[in-house]
């Protein structure tokens, strides 16, 4: 299977370790991974801030880069949701504005084959035990887009539960937003920070060493908060946990 890794602009620039972990994990599972260097960004930040027209060229670019692959895998619930949920909407709005079907037709091929990482593992590869080893106490935050846009359900939990040595503890109020929300974190910084602080306190109450999620954008906000609050809690992307083995443990 020719699978393309769509790493997302945030991960590419700020969290290359997550990218390396995805490559390591998928390769270990026998997947032939490619990273098309033409990739940039799905356009989510533009779209969510109200710049729909600025989003269109980015979506078209995404389709150009990834159109030929059998599957596109991304370690980001919100970017996967952007492609799957909102690309069709971009096409639909363009049509409603009398600009015909061109955009919808261009974007259509990538929509069904773009998967969030845990979705790809469980649904496409059919695995829940990826042979990982990670001897730590972990709590899982199911980010909003993973939870409500992609309906990831218990896929990430099933993957984590199969990790050797990992003790999974329940996060109180897990389904509540951490307060990141892209530009919301800047435009409504006070509310965003209050939400983040509550999330960190809830995670701390579990006694976990690691707070895990499937989206580094949320982890950047939560991690920035733990760091400022001098909390011992460490934010870690789920890909890094799943990639960790006894021979090559994650740090």
């Amino acid at each position, binding site marked *: 299977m020719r699978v393309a890794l769509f790493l997302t602009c945030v991960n590419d620039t700020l969290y290359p370790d997550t990218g390396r972990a995805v490559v390591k994990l998928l390769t270990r599972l026998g997947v032939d991974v490619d990273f098309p260097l033409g990739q940039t960004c799905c356009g989510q930040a533009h779209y969510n801030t109200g710049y729909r027209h600025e989003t269109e060229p980015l979506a078209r670019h995404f389709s150009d880069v990834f159109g030929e692959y059998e599957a596109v895998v991304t370690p980001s619930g919100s970017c996967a949701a952007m492609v799957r949920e909102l690309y069709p909407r971009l096409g639909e709005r363009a049509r409603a504005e009398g600009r015909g079907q061109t955009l919808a037709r261009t974007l259509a091929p990538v929509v069904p084959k773009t998967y969030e990482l845990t979705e790809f593992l469980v649904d496409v590869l059919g695995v829940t035990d990826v042979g990982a080893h990670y001897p730590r106490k972990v709590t899982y935050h199911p980010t909003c887009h993973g939870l409500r846009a992609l309906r990831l359900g218990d896929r990430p939990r099933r993957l984590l539960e199969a990790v050797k040595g990992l003790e999974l503890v329940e996060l109180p109020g897990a389904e509540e937003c951490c307060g990141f929300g892209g530009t919301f974190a*800047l*435009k409504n910084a006070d509310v965003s920070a209050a939400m983040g602080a509550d999330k960190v306190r809830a995670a701390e109450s579990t006694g976990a060493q690691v707070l895990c999620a499937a989206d580094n954008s949320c982890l950047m906000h939560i991690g920035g908060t733990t760091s400022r609050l001098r909390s011992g809690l460490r934010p870690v992307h789920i890909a890094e946990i799943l990639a960790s083995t006894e021979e090559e443990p994650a740090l």
Partner: protein
Amino acid sequence: MSGTFVGMPAFAAFPEAAREAVGNRTLRGNLRHATHTIRAKRARAVAEVSDWAELREAGRRIKDHTLHHLDRYLEQLEESVTRAGGTVHWAADAAEANRIVADLVTATGESEVVKVKSMATQEIGLNEALEAAGIRAYETDLAELIVQLGKDRPSHILVPAIHRNRGEIRDIFAKEMGEWGRPAPDGLTDTPAELAEAARLHLREKFLRAKVGISGANFMVAETGTLVVVESEGNGRMCLTLPETLISVVGLEKVVPTWRDLEVFLQTLPRSATAERMNPYTSMWTGTTGEDGPRTFHLVLLDNGRTDTLADQVGRQALRCIRCSACLNVCPVYERAGGHAYGSVYPGPIGAILSPQLRGTASEIDASLPYASSLCGACYDVCPVAIDIPEVLVHLRERVVEGGPAVRAGNRVLLKPAKGHAAERAAMRAARWALAHPGALRTGQRLASRTRRLHPRTLPGPGRAWSGTRDLPPVPAEPFRDWWQRTHGTDNGEGAAK
């Protein structure tokens, strides 16, 4: 044209108003407690119903169908109400509705009215307008009474005094009741039973004296001209049946075609709103009926920005709202910012999409409301008529930053982008350009990596919004794409991509 009044003077933009609320510990405690309690109860009440998804879909469809043929159903409603002995008045905006109601009350020779809790009359500021016409309006819903006595503003659709705790309510009753009628009993404590009894005694006097009642309605049935109010306390029923004249002010989107349609909402509304299987009081009235109930009945159909909203393909779904307030109770932003920060009688997620549509996005508060959300989607999940609130929020953000076509006061207009977004727009354009050119993105990444030791821990300018409370992630020594190229070799298509 942005003259539509939505019941509350608009103060600061949302972020500033919210900052104050976030810092108020009592308020945050009150709100957290109240919203979490009702949230959990609602989830249980909804889980009991095996066909919730179908009910939600049915509700969505009925509302969409009705909105699509609104003119037809409103005409049918007017006919039915008239046939049943009522009189229908059409009000284009708040001023017209207030004038109609004030004239109707004045014509009865009365200077006092009792009121059923109603969002529509809050929206148009009816109490203040009546006051100006020399008429005193008494709120009879317990929470509305608390707000009225406290010279306060409502902060929740269903529980307007949600921001108050019992101690605060006791103090308001003890201090203010005497001003308005029967004073609170001596030695009033803050136990719920005593507070309720004080309110009951205070209100009973009003019910028995009033000759005019004013209400809104949750639904209007076109086929029979029947109006429906659902409530928990029974105060509404007293106001609807005891006075000689009843005036109902209702938003024109509240019409449903038939009684069959009503059945769906009488299941979804109470469970979404108060987590009850059925409302304790469901009152229905159809025109006038001889010696029983009010002798005179007036229905004021309120537009106040609704047909403008209906003209918007994406935004019109906000008119499906049945005001259950489930979206408020589940919203993490509402929970922290409080209802007053939204600057209208409609707070929370529904307020954030309804007010900027009814009023337009010209004012600072209205331009800021579409951003009062992290787009977490919890509101969409609970909405019993499936309003995609995040979708409408993003659509309204577009209206704020890019402008575009809209209908205001019945006229097609081309809105200009709101002021203050020029720098952001330029940044977004630049980012879009860079992101459409992978080479430019890579240059930026390399520059960031190379200068990483110089990056400050706190940011200047607009970045302070982030670094005031959160640390920045350190920039890695090497972006992923450089690592990939170093370890996996050739350039595969960077140049080819447009």
